[in-house]
């Protein structure tokens, strides 16, 4: 398990005694704003990827932007690494503390500062929960569109860091498409405003660069988000298939017909049966796969699209096509999908969630291949995913109490991610690279590309102190791990163009 940082393969910093950190940072923070006792640090040892754990030297809990600036300036002067943390729900170990470093929690930045219904914007602090924004503006007929599955708990600052997606992003876009500007403190303590309340800012599009940068370039202290009018109506169709490949084919048919659903999700047999047992959503348990297709907008258009999509699904070989008859049934159809990960607990003690994205046309082939890879590694697999945008979430089932089972699950996961890259996709669609997929980055990017990423990082953080050992691997790490899967210096499927 890759939870320890490796001095040979990850950045190294001279150790600074905890007492020194307390002496320097304590006065910069409010009372109860600095934690250094081991029992106090323990809650911060991992994020939403609990298999990865390490302890920071201290946890800093600033309450003002000036305090964030002061802490970063002081850490820069001492050459101490800093890892920013929002709600800690990330699934790739992006907020895993760096041993000996400072864990900077933004949890006290939890206020919605301003809602402007005319401009359709909300100015929020980074610790505000994703769903809290939509709740605060629902009465105005607006919502904040990106809806990662953790939206109840995850913070908007973390969403910016990860460029979070969700079920609705096929139609409404990712986090980057729903931001207007961010305030960012760089490692030297400089406060920058990137983007603008207008649709664009002068110069390079730095706000877009910051989005998804996984806390490597700066610390976000304020976010201006774009709000979207709530649709008049949303309706969902449930389609059952007796063949996974036919279900995958139906996804392409819908998109090719010029329809952009608000959500287009797929679950295979093992996943839908577990979800049905857990949530009693009304899924047909004998199906090999189901699709959930949500259509929203003006009532007249939605009615028309429901008819078109139903006909397409039937023509594509669906054995059963049902439109939720009311809001209650719609909620139940979605409850199964949203509870799918939790439901896995019923069929396996542990699961390992993969996040690759592939071109939709590769879906049938990749799904077949995932089943084969899981068999080959002796682990089970269930597929729950955002079919509309090709973002797969195979859940590899294992039992951590069985010797070697976790290693088998990780090996199967690594092989699946490499398959995603082979077919022209990516190792992570929405969870981020973090610590978890740092080695797979070497399969997706060349040494010159990794070098360019480091150069971009240095432009913001010349000392390399922000979130070291995450997101962008060192060249030493790629030399160690990246070569493994490149045979005789050639990328697999070399005849395919890669972008």
């Amino acid at each position: 398990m890759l939870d320890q940082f490796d001095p040979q393969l990850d950045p190294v910093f001279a150790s600074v005694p905890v007492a020194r950190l307390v002496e320097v940072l304590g006065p910069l923070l409010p009372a109860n704003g600095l934690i250094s006792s081991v029992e106090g640090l323990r809650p911060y040892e991992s994020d939403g990827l609990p298999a990865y754990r390490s302890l920071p030297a201290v946890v800093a809990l600033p309450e003002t932007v000036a305090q964030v600036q002061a802490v970063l300036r002081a850490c820069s002067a001492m050459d101490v690494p800093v890892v920013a943390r929002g709600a800690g729900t990330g699934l790739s170990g992006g907020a895993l503390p760096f041993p000996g470093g400072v864990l900077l929690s933004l949890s006290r930045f939890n206020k919605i500062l301003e809602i402007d219904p005319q401009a359709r914007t909300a100015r929020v602090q980074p610790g505000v929960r994703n769903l809290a924004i939509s709740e605060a503006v629902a009465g105005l007929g607006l919502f904040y569109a990106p809806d990662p599955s953790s939206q109840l708990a995850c913070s908007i600052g973390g969403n910016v860091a990860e460029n979070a997606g969700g079920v609705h992003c096929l139609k409404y876009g990712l986090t980057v498409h729903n931001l207007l500007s961010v305030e960012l403190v760089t490692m030297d303590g400089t406060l920058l405003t990137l983007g603008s309340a207008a649709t664009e800012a002068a110069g390079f599009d730095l706000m877009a660069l910051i989005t998804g940068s996984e806390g490597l370039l700066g610390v976000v202290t304020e976010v201006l988000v774009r709000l979207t009018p709530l649709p008049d109506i949303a309706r969902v169709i449930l389609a059952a298939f007796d063949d996974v490949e036919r279900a995958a084919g139906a996804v392409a048919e819908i998109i090719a017909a010029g329809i952009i659903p608000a959500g287009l999700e797929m679950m295979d047999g093992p996943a839908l049966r577990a979800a049905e047992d857990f949530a009693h959503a009304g899924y047909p348990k004998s199906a090999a796969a189901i699709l959930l297709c949500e259509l929203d907008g003006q009532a007249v258009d939605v009615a028309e699209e429901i008819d078109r999509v139903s006909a397409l699904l039937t023509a594509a070989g669906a054995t059963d096509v049902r439109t939720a008859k009311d809001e209650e049934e719609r909620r139940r159809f979605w409850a199964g999908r949203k509870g799918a990960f939790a439901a896995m607990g019923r069929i396996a003690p542990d699961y390992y969630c993969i996040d690759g994205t592939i071109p939709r046309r590769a879906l049938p082939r990749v799904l077949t291949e995932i089943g084969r890879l899981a068999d080959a590694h002796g682990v089970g697999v269930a597929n729950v995913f955002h079919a509309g945008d090709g973002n797969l979430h195979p859940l590899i089932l294992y039992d951590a109490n069985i010797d070697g089972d976790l290693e088998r699950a990780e090996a199967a996961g690594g092989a699946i991610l490499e398959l995603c890259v082979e077919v022209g996709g990516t190792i992570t669609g929405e969870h981020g690279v973090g610590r978890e997929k740092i080695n797979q980055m070497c399969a997706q990017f060349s040494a010159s590309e990794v070098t360019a990423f480091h150069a971009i990082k240095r432009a913001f953080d010349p000392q390399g102190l922000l979130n070291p050992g995450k997101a962008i691997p060192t060249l030493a790490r790629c030399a160690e791990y990246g070569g493994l899967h490149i045979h005789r210096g050639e990328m697999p499927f070399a005849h395919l163009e890669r972008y």
Partner: protein
Amino acid sequence: MRTLNATDADKTADLAEAVRAAKVAATPLKIAGGGTRDFLGRRVVGQVLSVSGHRGIVDYDPAELVITARAGTPLSEIETALDAERQMLAFEPPRFGMAGTLGGMVATGLSGPRRPFTGAVRDFVLGARVLNGHGEALRFGGTVFKNVAGFDAFRLMAGAYGGLGVLLDISLRVVPKPRLEQALAFDMPGAAARAWVTDLMRKPVPLSGAFHDGTRLHLRLSGGEAGVTATARALGGETEDLAVWTRVRDLTHPALVGKPVLWRIVLPQTSARPDVLHAPWDQGGGVTWLQADHVDPAIWEIAKAHGGHATLFRGGGDNIFQPLEPAIFSLHQRLKAALDPAAILNPGRMYEGL
């Protein structure tokens, strides 16, 4: 999925060699495509690096909603291919002549009337292959919509005017064409029109254009037949030809031509507007097009004071883009140095010293 054109060619190796040679010789390069956007930005003095021979659609599968093409591919070729599949570029890029290329479109990052309703160029760039200032071909992003591996350097290329890399190949997300579009016009003063459009945008109305020519408001609706028809009936106004939107997009509308100086002023849709900025606007009031006989430098300050920025679209001299705050400008310089350390790629196209 596509037919090869006789003009299709992959010139990556030649272009890379030219950049490497320029780096060794410390020769600045002026990156050129079709030349239709030469008038934008500052003048670059350097050896011409023509990308127009590097052309052709590399991959287009309508069911993927993605097109990948070489930077020298004429924009018209891409739009023809998309049109045949009833798809389009959502951000409605302006055209300043038939020779315009994909690379020029992305490098200048200009989006058209649809922008506030559907998104900007950078929102639809999924990936790009670029030559950095060392002449190395780097691939950022990919061909899939959801992709968070590595920094999104490909989005940074949109609107960077070639200063961070020579664009080689670009993958764009495309969208289905709306099943129905309708253009409406209303006699209404600019301020009242902006307030009305702002109100409309708070509701799920199928709006895809809102332009004010100084005396009349022009709206465009796009979507399903039923929704567009019902909305048009509810809004009233006078039906007009959709062709007006091509003229708005390409800045050939009579309200946008005539004087030597043209400012493009981007402001928050709801910000207050001083008298000096009372002029035709597009994008729901987010972009003001101000014509003048002479450049009045006070416009920079006025735009900034109202929460936005200005660009001298036509008739500018040495300063074209809104001056940047010192800390932001120095970050621009460091980013430029990170990707183009010898400063040979379109130096000075956006700002002096960048």
